[in-house]
Structure formats: structure tokens, C-alpha cells
């Protein structure tokens, strides 16, 4: 099989704008002249499952797997979300009918896409009206608890797509290598990394700190507001702002990683949802995935600089923020 290991989980099928002041990356949409976070305004998220299975996976197993993936996101202690399975439907997951539909669909034309999430958005508020997810039956799927060699783990991919459904964009918390046919993941520390782990593994079933920070940022509860903090600052090169730089905060106490991007022309970044305590910062160019997996293609993302560390330890306050970090990078 030459499908290879390079399979993009999604290119969210909406015009995606990055939202300023976001860590990781949140989906956004234009409302007038503003860019607002794409998010659900009402819970529970009510969804249907297309009553169609694929080889090795029945529609009932699909429903159970999707439910498990929703539950994983809903268990995040710093965020409040909920969902409700409404029933099976004959509608395809690409229908634009006001109903959120999740199901299998045969898309051999998308030869590198395991699944994708699409949205219908209220353009006056940015609220998500409908979000559909399809899993591409051009690939072999498994719902085995331990995973199956050569088959993609449906729960891992569902967890990623449901992250999109909630409004999360891609995380750059991973490393890849270029091989014939595209990129292969060497390692990743976010379910929302755009390229899947190899077939046969179930490594993608567990949310990472980066994912948890992201969902908390979009749907924060009182625990998030009270117990987490943020780091903000600017990434500059030769005195000018750098757009699209990936900034990583490493918590030396919990040994966890959360990433964010500089999301404006002046290089401003914010990484939110961090545990209080000392962090070290590292900035790198966005070179472990296609830029279009993260940002609108019209943006001028700067990848011409060397990775580097920040020379100060940054301490995150509980329920507050540390600002004024200046990361000055140099060209390669």
C-alpha cells in the first residue's frame, strides 16, 4: 500500500483565519472588520451519525467511538463542553442542512486526507451553526482497543476532528521528516497536530497539555480562569515583527509543552492555559507541516529564522499573565 504515512487529518474546509490572542491555534472567522473565535454558542452540541459503516467498522461502532472522543474533550477539567447524540441519519456528513452530521464518506480524490471537518457559521456572531465531520473510507479503519496493524485508529482521528468541531485549529507541537510522498511524523505532543501517527497505533487517543490549553481557552470554566496563566510578548527579526513564529512554553515542573503562534504583523503572541510556575521559551519557524495546514495561504508567514531559546526564565502567575517577552530571532 503506498498511502504512506503522510496523511493530513484535515484541512478544515472553511476559510480559516487565525485568531489573535490565541495559544496553539483557534479557528476564526471574519465578522465585519473583526476576526472572532469560531465557537459554539449553545451546548450540548447535538449531532447525528450517518447510518453507514465501512470495512471493519459498523455505524454503531462509529457512534460509540465518536461518543468516546466527545467524552474525552468533555473531561478536560479547565473547560466546559457537552454533546448529545441525536440519532442516526441517512444524510451525508457534507450536507449543509443545519444539522451536525458525522460519518464515513468515500473520498478517494482526497488521497492524503483521513478526515475533515467543515462548518457553517453565523457570519454576524461567529457562532458555529453546523459542523460536519467525514472519515475517508479510502483508508482502512479500526476500532480495536489495542489498534490493528495497517489500520487507522478511528478514535484517534475522531478526537482530532472533534477538536476542530469545537473550534480548535492545528497545533504545531510535533516534528516531521520529508520522505517520498510527503511528510512523516517523527513525534507529536498534541492531538491537534495536523499529521497523523502511523496506521496501527492508538497514540492519538490521549489529549496532551497543548490540546487541553486550547480547549480551555475557547470554552474556559472557573478552574481555567482561576488556576491557569499566560505568557505574552513579541517575536521580532531585525526589529520587525515575525508573523507565524511557533513559540513553545515548557513547564519545568510538569515537564509539559504548550505552543502558540505570533499572530499579527508586529509579532505579538500569547500562550494561554499554562500551569503557574517557571517556564522556558523556545521559538521556531513553522517548518514541520504545510503552512496551509495552519494559516490562510494569503498570509506572509516568515519561516526564515533559526530556532532559539529565550534567555530568561518566565514565571506564569496563577490566574494572570506575564507580558513583555521579547524574542529576537535571526535569519537562517
Amino acid at each position, binding site marked *: 500500500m503506498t498511502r504512506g504515512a503522510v496523511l493530513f487529518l484535515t484541512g478544515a474546509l472553511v476559510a480559516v483565519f487565525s485568531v489573535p490572542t490565541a495559544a496553539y491555534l483557534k479557528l476564526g472567522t471574519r465578522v465585519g472588520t473583526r476576526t472572532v473565535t469560531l465557537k459554539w454558542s449553545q451546548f450540548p452540541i447535538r449531532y447525528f451519525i450517518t447510518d453507514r459503516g465501512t470495512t471493519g467498522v459498523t455505524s454503531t461502532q462509529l457512534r460509540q467511538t465518536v461518543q468516546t472522543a466527545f467524552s474525552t474533550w468533555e473531561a478536560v477539567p479547565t473547560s466546559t463542553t457537552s454533546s448529545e447524540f441525536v440519532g442516526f441519519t441517512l444524510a451525508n456528513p457534507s450536507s449543509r442542512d443545519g444539522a451536525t452530521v458525522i460519518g464515513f464518506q468515500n473520498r478517494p480524490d482526497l488521497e492524503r486526507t483521513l478526515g475533515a471537518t467543515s462548518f457553517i457559521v453565523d457570519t454576524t456572531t461567529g457562532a458555529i451553526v453546523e459542523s460536519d465531520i467525514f472519515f475517508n473510507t479510502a483508508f482502512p479503519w479500526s476500532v480495536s482497543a489495542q489498534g490493528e496493524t495497517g489500520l487507522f485508529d478511528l478514535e484517534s482521528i475522531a478526537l482530532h476532528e472533534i477538536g476542530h468541531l469545537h473550534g480548535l485549529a492545528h497545533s504545531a507541537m510535533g516534528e516531521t521528516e520529508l520522505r517520498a510522498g510527503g511528510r*512523516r511524523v*517523527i513525534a*507529536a505532543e498534541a492531538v491537534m497536530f495536523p499529521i497523523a501517527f502511523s496506521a496501527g497505533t492508538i497514540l492519538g487517543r490521549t489529549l496532551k497539555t497543548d490540546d487541553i490549553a486550547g480547549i480551555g481557552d475557547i470554552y474556559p470554566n472557573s478552574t481555567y480562569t482561576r488556576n491557569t496563566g499566560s505568557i505574552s510578548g513579541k517575536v521580532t527579526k531585525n526589529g520587525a515583527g515575525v508573523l507565524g513564529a511557533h513559540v513553545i512554553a515548557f513547564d519545568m515542573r510538569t515537564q509539559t509543552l504548550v505552543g502558540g503562534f505570533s499572530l499579527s504583523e508586529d509579532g505579538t503572541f500569547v500562550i494561554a492555559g499554562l500551569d503557574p510556575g517557571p517556564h522556558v521559551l523556545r521559538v521556531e519557524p513553522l517548518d514541520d507541516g504545510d503552512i496551509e495546514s495552519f494559516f490562510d495561504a494569503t498570509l506572509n508567514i516568515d519561516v526564515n529564522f533559526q530556532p532559539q531559546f529565550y534567555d530568561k526564565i518566565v514565571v506564569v502567575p496563577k490566574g494572570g499573565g506575564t507580558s513583555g517577552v521579547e524574542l529576537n530571532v535571526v535569519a537562517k
Partner: protein
Amino acid sequence: MIRHTRIRLLHVTSFLVLVWSASPHSAAAQVYIGSDIPHRGNVEISGGAVWSGGYDLGSASAEETRNTGTGTGPFVLFSTSSRADASPGLQARLGAYLAASLSIEGGVLVARPGISTRLTGDAESAPDITATETLTRLIIDGSALFHLRGASFGGGKGVPFILGGGGYLRDAHDKNEVIETGREFHVGGGLHYWFGQGKHRFGVRAEAGISRRTGGADSIDTTRTVLTVAGSIAYLF
């Protein structure tokens, strides 16, 4: 005979026993034996410099979950190794003699220790670097001092002591935006040397000890041992 017995006790007694000796029963047995030795009712004020040793804060790795078929073990993005630097500070103490051989005191210590983290082994060749920060540390503590009168010298002007106690540790990070607190316990020993003969006397005080600390800013959830050395000017009245 009484004096000889006390000397022997000093070598074997524990802190709890020292506290016991401060009971009214023991105190009542103390006898003022001359102006060369501080005695019950004296008050001591001292202030001076403290040096606290540096210590290791441990290592950590920024790890990512490795994909199958790309190697073994977690993928290490980079590694950190942290250390609290040795630092000078200032201290002030106020004590009261409950007996010629026993005093209690409270004190405050202020220091500006530095924390440094060495960042190495970046998977994408980011240059190694040392990231730093400076803390404002405040320690408020209490101690019991047992004065070794039997080991005094210089006509009673020099009096060794041993001490033990504990306190509250407060670390403020740069800009004092974040406060982290902890506890400390200390034991040590030192020497007073008093000048003059009157009730009101100046003297010098030198001491060294170890401090066991938990919490505060520079911990990675560990208890650490810190060597301390201090020198002060003291006033007795």
C-alpha cells in the same frame, strides 16, 4: 560540679531537651555568675550578612510522543538543567535570653538569589543557552540557641552556641508578580564574642548551618539542603 554536668549534657542533648531546659524549673536554677556572660533577661539585637550556598534544582526533558517506527523512547526536543546560584543576603535578629545558657530569637533574612536553567540538546539545533531569573527571597524564622557556657573563652567574652529552628519562606519572582511560599528548618552553630564588661555591650556573631527548605520558587517539588554562613554585629542589653 554543676558546670561540668552541663558541659556533658551539651554534647548529647537534642533540641527538645534544650527546650525543656527553658522551663521555669530549669530557669529558676540559673545563677547570674558575672557580667562576662549574658544572662536571663538580656536582649540581643544583631544584623549582618548571610551567604547561602547554591544547589541543584534537577533536570528535565521536553519530550514528545514518538511515532512508531521512528526510534525508541520519547522524542527529546531539548533538555534543561537548573540550579539555584549561591547568593548573599542580609539578616536582622532579635533575641531574648531565657537563661544564661538559653535564648530564643526571631529573625528576617532578605536575599536576591538567582536561578539559572541550562538549555541544551535541541533537536533542531537551537544554540545552547542559560536562561536566568532573579528572586527576592524573604525568610522569617524563629530559633532556639543553646549557649555553651562551659566552652566559653577569653574570660567569658567568647561563647559558642548551637541553634535550631524553622520559618516561613517567601519568594517573589521578578517584578514581584508571582509569590511562592514554603518552609525552612535549620540547625547550626556559631560563636558570640562580646566586647566590654557592662550590661550594654557590643559584640560580633558568626554562625554556620544547614537549612532544609521545601516550597518556594526554586523547587521542583523537592526538599533541598542549603549551606548558610552568616556574620553579624550584635548589641546586648
